[in-house]
């Protein structure tokens, strides 16, 4: 083999573009956040126009009035307090649900009985709406936070366990063999090989679990409100409906949405970027 100089290649100046920064407009259009913000603004505009046309604040307050009520309730601290109460309860339920789901899935990966148990339980209980358990929870745990926690855990645990288990089972045989090759067994094997390898699936389980928990919490609060003096967001919505303060009802709903968006857009997005995207397991 000889190192001949390649023939017939054009000099670098002959190319139009080798690498060129995109224009500001191209960058703006390429940015997901910008595009989504535009959609949100458009929706808010539609709301405002339609509400003015309906002109009945008891049925549909305008976007602006809702925003005013939202700002007022935030400034008075009432909404923040209620959201805080809800979030605190939610996080507690979410955390307990996650731990239980992880324990179940690890058990399912290490013993055959565990796997059968998990499959039967998730098949049975995953389709059962958490709210349907609320009456039972009231009988068992009484009127209060333990009952809400119970339905929260139920709503988080099954979808997360299901996704985690499915993710574990989809881990390639090669990776499993690599894990066993270096001598990993039992829980160490699950935590160091299976959990990261199944992380895309686990992450989607976390998201589904979060959404279920959030919905369940608000619904549960609506159904039986509060016992300990300061209820959560669901109770806030219910109370304001009773006094016909519809803008405040909207403000409550608005808060629910905003928190959902923030968690999805900031927390889960960041988690995704720091893990599965960085690892090339998801594009």
């Amino acid at each position, binding site marked *: 083999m000889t190192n001949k100089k390649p023939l017939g290649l054009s000099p670098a100046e002959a190319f139009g573009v080798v690498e060129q920064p995109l224009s500001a407009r191209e960058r703006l259009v390429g940015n997901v956040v910008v595009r989504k913000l535009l959609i949100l603004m458009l929706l808010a505009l539609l709301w405002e126009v339609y509400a003015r046309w309906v002109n009945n604040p008891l049925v549909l307050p305008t976007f602006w009035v809702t925003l005013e009520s939202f700002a007022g309730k935030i400034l008075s601290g009432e909404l923040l307090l209620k959201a805080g109460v809800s979030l605190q309860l939610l996080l507690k339920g979410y955390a307990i649900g996650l731990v239980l789901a992880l324990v179940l899935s690890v058990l399912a990966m290490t013993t055959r009985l565990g796997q059968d148990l998990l499959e039967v339980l998730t098949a049975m209980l995953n389709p059962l709406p958490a709210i349907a358990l609320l009456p039972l929870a009231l009988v068992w745990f009484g009127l209060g936070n333990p009952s809400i926690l119970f339905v929260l855990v139920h709503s988080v645990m099954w979808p997360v366990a299901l996704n985690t288990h499915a993710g574990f089972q989809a881990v390639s045989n090669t990776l499993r*063999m690599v894990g066993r090759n270096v001598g990993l067994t039992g829980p160490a094997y699950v935590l160091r*090989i299976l959990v990261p390898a199944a992380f895309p699936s686990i992450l989607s389980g976390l998201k589904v679990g979060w959404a279920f928990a959030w919905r369940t919490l608000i619904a549960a609060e609506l159904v039986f409100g509060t016992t300990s003096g300061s209820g959560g967001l669901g109770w806030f919505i219910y109370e304001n409906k009773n006094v016909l303060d519809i803008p405040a009802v909207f403000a409550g709903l608005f808060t629910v949405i905003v928190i959902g968006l923030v968690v999805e857009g900031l927390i889960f997005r960041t988690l995704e970027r720091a893990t599965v995207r960085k690892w090339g397991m998801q594009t």
Partner: protein
Amino acid sequence: MNTSTPLLLDVDGVTLQYKTREHRVTATYRVSFQVHQGDRFVLLGPSGCGKSTLLKAVGGYIRPVEGQILLKGQLIEKPGPDRVMVFQEFDQLLPWKTVLGNVLFALEASGRLRGAQALERAHEAITKVKLERFSDAYPHTLSGGMKQRVAIARGMAMEPDILLMDEPFAALDALTRRQMQDELLQLWEASRFTVIFVTHSIPEAVRVGNRIMLLSPHPGQVRAEFESDGSDSIDADSGLHLSERIHAMLFTTSPKPSDEAAHDK
């Protein structure tokens, strides 16, 4: 046969079976061979001759139903870091760890080395496969050949008794494959490790191995054993190149030359 170097692996009358949903399949039948220190031992055969299954049995993933496998006189019972596997699949690297992380992981999870020593050994191994510039890269950013080099580096860093390579270059393009074979031989020249290399390519077997064991299919049985000096030399008795002799032996029972294309990449 090579008797001047110590016996390392003794595979003695090993029959391997695995279960599918409906059948119990015998993969190999009473296969025996011995691997000595520093051997580049190639298991060669067509698809279905149980060569990969045999390698997995040496790896400790499958128990023989008959016969035994001894490593340094010890019965092989389960997978362990004294026999490191290098697979064909690119996904054998942990995608959540960098090149360096993958090598370190193997060292630390297996308890071979820790801390600064592990780091030093990992860097050494990565330098040997010429990937030091990519230490901090994640596997998904590497080419197929580079991924296989990381897997080899990971295996060598462990300094196992035997490196078990299961068609490691089969998924690579022809040019890269040639290059990887050369690099493997250079690495071997430098540290003289023991390796069992599974392949279904005759040219690869002749280039890579110093000993080649030919298996016949369904179920796998030992057909013949050859020694190779890597140059595909001409046999004095038959006047044939080594690869031609292997080829003739592989296809005497199934005289369909069209099969060749499928097996002999």
